């Protein structure tokens, strides 16, 4: 097999688009539709690679004008320091406005209670929903992809949420051609997923093509980790190894970035983008299967969280 000969195969005419061009154009179209039809859109920004790619696409969609949206970070309080630093750098570089909804605040105020397993991902839903309501955000961009998980495979690009942020799969509107329907009642909002049709590999290929900078924890580094629930976790503010769990130094990287208490590292020696892409292309595990404890809770874990208003 040769690489070069295959690139344009099937295009047939000089007017073809590569798969990354097609996905990029679709995402830009979605950002511009929202800018044209909504009053107060916001981008959910965690500092993870998907939200970083979203921000990059938004910057391209409106250049040379600034992005007409602010950012919202739902902060679990269990952040990787490298990711927080990246977030603040991005905000400063592009002159953006950042909202932070803090899970720790809700716990301190006694509104939310820490779960016995220490996992805070499910606790994000309430701070997210209340911030959407108080700021009157009417469109909320999320980096969710349909390839991530079964319940996401049926998600719309424009996903209607009621005033409690709840998702009702039977109430979702058919999406035909590229005609998105953003109508919503006061108090309702629309979650918008510009990366719906991207896969993990597309995201990484796009990061490489565009030369997008990522937090360094996405690349292989030495880290003290311990084994829990089949994953390598890192100690932090959230807690650490319990009796019987041994801490060891390993060469790892992160495939996803979320709450430290439930985001696992994977063994890896991939220190460059090219090595990361090769590793993902060869991987026999999905990124959520490899790195997310919260999705292993039950067969319908994501479906249940989505119904309640999760991302």
């Amino acid at each position: 097999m040769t690489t070069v000969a295959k690139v344009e195969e099937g295009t047939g005419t000089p007017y073809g688009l590569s798969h990354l061009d097609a996905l990029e154009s679709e995402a830009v179209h979605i950002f511009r539709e929202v800018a044209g039809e909504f009053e107060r859109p916001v981008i959910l920004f965690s500092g993870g690679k998907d939200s970083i790619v979203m921000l990059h696409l938004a910057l391209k969609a409106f250049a040379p004008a600034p992005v007409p949206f602010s950012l919202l970070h739902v902060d679990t309080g269990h952040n990787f320091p490298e990711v927080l630093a990246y977030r603040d750098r991005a905000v400063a570089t592009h002159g953006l406005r950042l909202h932070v909804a803090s899970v720790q605040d809700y716990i301190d105020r006694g509104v939310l209670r820490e779960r016995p397993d220490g996992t805070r991902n499910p606790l994000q839903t309430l701070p997210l929903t209340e911030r959407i309501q108080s700021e009157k955000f009417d469109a909320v961009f999320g980096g969710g992809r349909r390839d991530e998980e079964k319940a996401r495979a049926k998600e719309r690009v424009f996903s209607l949420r009621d005033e409690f942020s709840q998702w009702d799969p039977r109430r979702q509107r058919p999406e035909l051609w590229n005609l998105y329907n953003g109508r919503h009642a006061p108090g309702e909002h629309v979650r918008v997923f510009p990366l719906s049709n991207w896969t993990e590999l597309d995201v990484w290929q796009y990061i490489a093509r565009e030369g997008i900078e990522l937090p360094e924890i996405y690349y292989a580094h030495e880290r003290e980790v311990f084994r829990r629930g089949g994953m390598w976790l890192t100690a932090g503010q959230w807690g650490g190894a319990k009796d019987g769990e041994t801490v060891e130094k390993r060469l790892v990287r992160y495939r996803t970035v979320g709450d430290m208490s439930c985001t696992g590292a994977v063994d890896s020696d991939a220190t460059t983008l090219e090595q990361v892409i090769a590793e993902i292309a060869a991987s026999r595990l999905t990124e959520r299967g490899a790195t997310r404890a919260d999705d292993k809770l039950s067969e319908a874990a994501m479906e249940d969280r989505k119904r309640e208003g999760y991302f």
Partner: protein
Amino acid sequence: MSTTTELTGTTETTLLRFATAGSVDDGKSTLVGRLLHDSKSVLADQLEAVERASASRGQDGPDLALLTDGLRAEREQGITIDVAYRYFATPRRRFILADTPGHVQYTRNMVTGASTAELTVILVDARNGVVEQTRRHAAIAALLRVPHVVLAVNKMDLVDYREPVFAAIAEEFTAYATDLGVPEVTAIPISALAGDNVVEPSANMDWYGGPTVLEHLETVPVSHDLAHCHARLPVQYVIRPQTAEHPDYRGYAGQIAAGTFHVGEEVTVLPSGRTTTISAIDLLGKPVDAAWTTQSVTLLLTDDIDVSRGDLIVPSKDAPATTQDVEATVCHVADQPLTVGHRVLLKHGTRTVKAIVRDIPSRLTLDDLSLHPHPGQLVANDIGRVKIRTAEPLPVDSYADSRRTGSFILIDPADGTTLTAGMVGESFASPDPVKDAAEDDGWDF
């Protein structure tokens, strides 16, 4: 392994959006599962989940159909309620599959899946041949003008892989689909369960010399000769930085819906009809001399004329007429009916206008293509003809000429429900005395 990995990892390929239609009984889920599995798009943890679920149901091997089950509600009821999107890739191409259920009541899902598809796979059971449902699927592919149709004649193992069985079905279907205006039919004999001709060529059907399903998906052309297409750019957003660096920049952003635009070309802005020329094209930060569908671009114009969201930029020499009277074939997708006199919103391109349903001349029965005049209303999954009066003139194309600028949706202004998907212009659902398709019902036009 390394060769494949490197290709998949570093090469930019093309993207094919396709849809599948067929019921559980036709083996559609098994075919989809097999495509995902045999193209190595199913990862170990997904397969383990399927193996666990299959075992808990008392099945021997992994049931590949379970790979495409989505929501718990569906698993509990053993049905598919909606369009699910699947993603897989080979070294040659990336695929987005709109997987739609085939039950009678889910016409709207098939229409939804077909609206963005460049190819549809229609499944038939080799033992049953072309049945009512097959004709329904062919009609939807034809109405939505999906450019490529694959007829997958499944369960060939159950008819002893006999060529005459396949040939008869392929001939009957091709004649029917061609009659409806389907431009290209590729018939492939397969066994999804045994894997014949899905990814690997079948050893059981020497008489078949064509491509496997996957080979065909990998090589079918995904873009078309745009030289003869009407160029159309619906304006989504006006980019005006008003910064010290760009005090006078004013760009019109949108995704090119059809055709090609060139710098220096004379263009007309609709509905105002004002004319100017393209001074520059900005392709997401890169200046280009020409751009084409489906690129997202920003056009800069020579003259400072009034252009805003909802306008359509077209070549002056190829501008569509504007009209307030739209006749279209529609598929009703909402649970509440569409009635004569219904006040709605119509979204065409990037423009949303008030409109009223003036008439519903006919409803189409997909099974036999018979027309029922003046049904009074359309309910969910109905296909029919409507006449709509819009509050403002719209520059619509015929859907036969342009899928993007010949389509629209109707929205309920009260609750925002997407009511109806519309395709402008004539189709085989149009009342037509020559066709006289309604004789079964005794209707006379």
